[in-house]
């Protein structure tokens, strides 16, 4: 890749008390690329994402977005850059309906803080349509009444609606059945086709190989390899997840060369 990546992390360190969650991690996502982030439990996937999302501040390291260094302190900072995160537990309010969740924290309002419901309902309907989410009966029904796949669709649609450039999906298919998983994976591919960059965190290598262009493997808080999807095998990736060693040479990001 010759052009500058959309998101680039350099030498990120993060510790919680005495636990070193991330050590000197480099990570990048190209434009329109689906980058998978894989690793065993406790490998630091979620922590890394939270550093990008503004939930955690890294102890050291740089974050570059669109080639410029940025400091992301709050989720709002991330949203302003065009970074949206869909968390594993979806972060939807069950008591609110689909439209209300889509606009949570960013409600359309006039200068008296009055909600503009018609605009919100209209744009929600349009977004759902553009993403071909057709299984939801009414966008005015509470999210509590939706199935897992529908809830995931709402969460992804919410992330996409805000002209975002980068969507990070944390275990998007973990709780879904086969058909629903296929729906969500199709949705992920559609996002990339529309020019969005996607980071997909997953335990499920089948899902990863179905959607990702490249795969970054974390192990024990370190980056142990970046693989091209079409030049690697599941076996190779599994080996990196379970026994990979950092290949990083000081100052140079880990590349697609597979560790042996």
């Amino acid at each position, binding site marked *: 890749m010759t052009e500058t990546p959309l998101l680039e992390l350099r030498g990120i360190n993060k510790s919680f008390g005495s636990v070193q969650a991330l050590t000197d991690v480099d990570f990048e996502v190209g434009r329109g690329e689906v980058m998978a982030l894989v690793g065993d439990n406790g490998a630091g996937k979620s922590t890394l994402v939270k550093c990008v999302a503004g939930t955690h501040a890294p102890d050291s390291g740089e974050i570059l977005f669109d080639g410029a260094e940025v400091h992301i302190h709050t989720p709002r900072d991330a949203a302003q850059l065009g970074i949206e995160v869909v968390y594993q537990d979806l972060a939807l*309010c069950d008591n*609110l309906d689909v439209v209300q969740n889509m606009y949570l*924290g960013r409600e359309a309002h006039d200068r008296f803080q009055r909600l503009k419901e018609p605009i919100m309902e209209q744009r929600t309907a349009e977004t759902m349509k553009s993403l071909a989410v057709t299984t939801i*009966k009414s966008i005015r029904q509470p999210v509590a009444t939706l199935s897992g796949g529908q809830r995931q669709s709402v969460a992804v649609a919410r992330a996409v609606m805000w002209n975002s450039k980068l969507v990070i999906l944390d275990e998007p298919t973990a709780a879904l059945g086969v058909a629903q998983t296929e729906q969500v994976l199709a949705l992920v591919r559609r996002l990339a086709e529309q020019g969005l960059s996607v980071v997909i965190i997953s335990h499920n290598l089948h899902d990863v190989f179905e959607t990702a262009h490249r795969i970054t493997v974390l192990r024990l808080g370190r980056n142990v390899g970046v693989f091209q999807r079409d030049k690697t095998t599941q076996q190779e990736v599994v080996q990196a997840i379970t026994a990979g060693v950092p290949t990083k040479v000081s100052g140079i990001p880990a590349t697609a060369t597979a560790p042996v």
Partner: protein
Amino acid sequence: MTTADVEIVGQDKGPAPEEEQPAGLFGLLHRAAADIRSGNLGILPIVLALVFIVVFFSFEATNFFTAENFGNIIIQMAGTTMLAYGVVFVLLLGEIDLSISYVAGIGALAVAELQRPGTGHPGLSGLIAMPIAIVICALIGSAQGSIVAKIGVPSFVVTLAGFLIWQGVIVYRLAVPGSIIIQDRWINYTGSYYFSHVAGWLIAALVAGVYAATVLGGVIGKVRAGLPVQDRWAIAVKIAAVALGSFGIVAICNSASVQGTPLGLPLAAVIIVLFLVVLTFLAKRTTFGRHVYAVGGNAEAARRAGINVPRIRVLVFMISSVMAAIGGIILAANVNSVDTNFGGGTLLLDAISAAVIGGTSLFGGRGEVRNAFIGGAVIATVSNGLNTANYNPGTIYIVTGSILLLAVTLDTVARRLQVRSGR
């Protein structure tokens, strides 16, 4: 933008499913029946309960079902209902505010002190005293809310401490005089002013007109945006019901008289409705209200969505204390004084019961301001009815407690059925 452009496949409010359901009034009943079967009872049971209570006491006491007593009930429910309005917001967050009854006492004590002529200076006018009292209570709410939201002390503990502290302040201040008489007419008006008959009709027309305009305005906005609109029969029924209700209430109040002096619509009724409308607007139509529901539903989701959760919490505790102050002023006006017992008795539990009986969840995220309105009406009616029918005062507590238990049990069972029917 036409409807077809934005319609989602299978959207149930769109024009297509209307063909499957009978249209018109019958269709409305049909859908209501479907709602009830699936456990979505809404406020129906408690409204039916209120009707039953009224019918029951009409047979029990000869002086219950009269125009004069109707006005009495309105005035008696006003104070508690104000507190209950505030409770709804606190419960929406999944928090609790136990301090409201004595914060109401502080509000009442403040106006009483401010209107009292001191040595060498006259008392303040109630029109100045009341806003000052409300601001004092807003600060109390802000302090209690900040301890909950920013330090993280459970609201139960913070407001229980408030309950004791503000009670202490009231008893401490009133230990010597025993009570302060309120002579200011503006303050006393909140409990005893009646509008003239003509003013009453105008108010009824205003309420009905503004409601109709608001509802129709919303419908026009939706049609312009090409969105599905609620069934037009439901809209017509709502507008008609509000018009009938407001004119009916004024008609009853206007027909009342005491010893030849005609009464009219009590100011208390206007205060109750005004706050019902304003607070419902705040809860349902503003970003703040939306954020309150969001925090109550899933605080973590709200935080991740960029909502300033501590700010919402502090503001809600301020609303709670402000409504308590307003309620306290009305309650003091009802008896024209403040004494050491003010804010005691069942005021706190009545206010919380009113919100909960009406259908507000204790666990946050579910409830509406009108729940407190209906709950307040039920509690005031039961208490008034048992008094006029000369029951033992103990009966009031037993009956109110039973209604509370019954209402919440019914709601819980209905909700279970709702889950089972997959809604």
